[in-house]
């Protein structure tokens, strides 16, 4: 197990290096300058700025410096916000993205599992059809459509909740719904399938024949087994939700990291692009690393098979 873990760790480092390098290459190929008001810069001013940020050095030297800085956890200073370090921007923006992600995921898990369970228990009834219709809508309607609809109808027309901003608890609800909807739908469908699989197993039939109540069968036997496939995809879904808040953050004016991502590409803010890419990559790769380790723990065949390969 130690060898297996070490090997996974090395793979993780290699993956990160590849991501960091690819980001650097792509960034260098972006046309234009990274400076604000670049149309008004004279050649002299541009040269001064290029020198300040080390962009006048040969590309290989920039690459080596960049790797050194990244290894030391220094993601540089933003070009667009010259007094702010990228790590500070991340530290200020990530809590909002994370919080929104957690709210959305909690909602998706609770409502998604409930829908899935109801659909399975009331298989082929109007309950099932309604739950699955909701799931299909959830998968088909993207957050950039759902978000503005919620903001306008619930926020403005009905006036029930604030249509935007990130202040009191009431400001969390609409963005969390918008962000959770597709995940909720995926979880509902998965839970339904998994429940139906379990319900048809022999041991459930045995339990029924022994005269156990429906409630006891569902809680003691069905749920615990049916939830396992759902649990295994929660890690990637979690990462997906916290990194996928971009559109929702923009629509509801949530001060998270998502919108920095697009704006930094748009404005050629090199340090911000690379910093955010590395930050998200580290989260993703680390979650995958943990998932690999967890799989290895659960099923020894996995680490043996991989070990031989």
């Amino acid at each position, binding site marked *: 197990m130690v060898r297996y873990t070490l090997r996974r760790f090395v793979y993780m480092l290699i993956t990160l290096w590849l991501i960091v390098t690819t980001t650097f290459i792509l960034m260098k190929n972006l046309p234009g300058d990274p400076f604000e008001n670049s149309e008004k810069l004279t050649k002299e001013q541009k040269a001064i700025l290029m020198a300040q940020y080390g962009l006048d050095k040969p590309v290989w030297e920039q690459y080596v410096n960049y790797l050194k800085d990244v290894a030391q956890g220094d993601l540089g200073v933003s070009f667009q916000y010259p007094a702010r370090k990228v790590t500070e921007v991340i530290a200020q923006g990530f809590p909002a993205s994370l919080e929104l992600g957690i709210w959305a995921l909690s909602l998706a898990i609770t409502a998604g599992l409930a829908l899935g369970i109801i659909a399975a228990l009331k298989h082929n009834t109007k309950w099932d059809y309604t739950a699955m219709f909701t799931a299909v809508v959830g998968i088909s309607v993207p957050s950039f459509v759902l978000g503005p609809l919620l903001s306008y109808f619930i926020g403005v027309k009905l006036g029930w909740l604030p249509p*935007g901003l990130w202040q009191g608890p009431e400001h969390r609800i609409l963005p969390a719904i918008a962000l959770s909807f597709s995940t909720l739908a995926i979880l509902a469908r998965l839970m339904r399938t998994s429940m139906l699989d379990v319900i048809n197993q022999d041991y459930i039939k045995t339990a029924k024949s022994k005269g156990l109540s429906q409630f006891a069968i569902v809680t003691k036997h069905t749920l615990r087994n049916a939830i396992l496939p759902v649990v295994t995809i929660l890690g990637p879904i979690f990462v997906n939700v916290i990194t996928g808040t971009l559109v929702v953050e923009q629509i509801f004016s949530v001060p998270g990291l998502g919108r920095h991502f697009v704006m930094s590409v748009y404005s050629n803010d090199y340090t911000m692009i690379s910093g955010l890419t590395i930050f998200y990559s580290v989260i993703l790769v680390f979650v995958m690393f943990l998932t690999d380790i967890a799989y290895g723990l659960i099923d020894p065949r996995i680490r043996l098979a991989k070990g031989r390969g």
Partner: protein
Amino acid sequence: MKAKKWLAAAVALTMVGGTVVGCSSNNQGQSGGGTKGSAKQEVTLNYRAEPGALDVSKSTQVAVFTTMGMMHEGLYRIDKDGKAQPALAKELPQISADGKTYTIKLRDNVTWADGVPVKAQDFVYSYQRTLDPNTKALYSFMVAWIKGGSALMKAKTPEEIEKAKKELGVKALDDKTLEITLETPKAFFTEQLAFLTFFPQREDIVKKYGDKYGADANTVIGAGPFILEKWDHDQQLVFVKNDKYWDKDNVKLQKITINIVKDQNTGLNLFQTGAADLQNISGENIKLWEGKPEYLVQPELSVWYIKFQEKTVPAFKNKKIRQALAISIDNKAYIETVTGKGPVPATGFVTTGTSDGNGGEFRKTAGDLMPKFDPAKAKQLLQEGLQELGLKEFPKGLKIQGDDHGVGPKALEFLVAQWKQNLGIEVLAEPLPHKLRVDNENNHKYQISLSGWGADYNDPMTFLDMWIKGGEFNDVDWEHDQYTELIKKAEVETDRAKRSQLMVQAEKILMEEMPVAPNYFRALNWVKNPKIKGMLFPPYGVEFELKWAYVE
């Protein structure tokens, strides 16, 4: 089974964690209550951009100018008529006969927000810091108008820099008297002293915070009507009235909350629910608000125009071809189709609202110099131009580049259609990311480009000196000796009336030769709570001015 328990625990933790994290930060903010239905002197505004560093020397963004305009002040402040009124200065400057030396007395009772008196030395330090090459200030070119400014900007060694600072034409004659000597006279310099780049700076604060100067509410200080009390990045800025401000009796607002709302529709939703008192609008939203008491238009000193690159397309060296392409566009229809209400058709290259440097408005002094939309004449000019060049037809496959966002793509489509319809020529639209479009322009690597220019200061020169022969921003490679001569003369002319006339003559040449074809003067559109009175929307510099604002 063990593994299952472990995983179940993980799920439970995630869910509980979610609730805990969610709850723990719930109380961070405050509700975004608007001021509707209340006479409290508080306003909540939506603003589309997070300001960068609040640093007098380094700022170039309008978001920073607007923020600093609330919390800080210069020697003068621009009033509702666009005129400079004494602010930190006691009175308008005494200007020497040659127009180069400005002597300015500070008010006796002006202090920084922490109570420290504002001194003439704070201005000297500010200008020296902006010009110091180590500061890398982009707007230093304006401060370099001060005698010895360029020398300081170009100084290399620490000794050279120190020497140049001592020789710079800005002196504190005493704590309350500032003397500025310019390299050449600048007719608009008094107004310029109201611009952020000429605000004072506190040496102790700049040195104390170093790289963090201006990064947060507690690392910056001003001497203006409001104090920046709170700055939650990407979220909110909160200002409160500065009780140490010299003119506090004329400041009515007690609190200003600015929410950073980048999505315009969300901003409008907040405005409609009363959670915001101001929101900028564009495109289709203008039609929804036009004619309502909330709607207002803010003209800008900003021109949008077409550039013809003369080196990549030799046919553009011919004046008649450029004129044909310019007058075959119906600029009125262009605005109606592309931008919506607000902008006005260009009547020259210098925008409406720009001063003529002689107490008047340049557009009124120069008149309407833009040739009228005339498809028949355009066709004729194109034929004549092609004949002069010995060409049978207009070059094929030419591209017009423009921005790929906002009104950019629609504008390109419109122009291409106009040329096709009115001249029978095919030009291809090439929408590009903004940075790439600008990069192509800077490198003179385009054929036709749809571009814009906003004034850096309120004087025609900010628009006209771009097109001199070999000028830094003359990326169309147009070369006209007489034009260049007129601009160079105007730059050193001390007689304001003569100077103004020289610039009028220069613009006449520009509009006759048409190396660039202006389309419209831009404007911003807003919706504002009608209960807010006295709020100004100046055409350049800050986007809005709240010193005199109040809630009715």
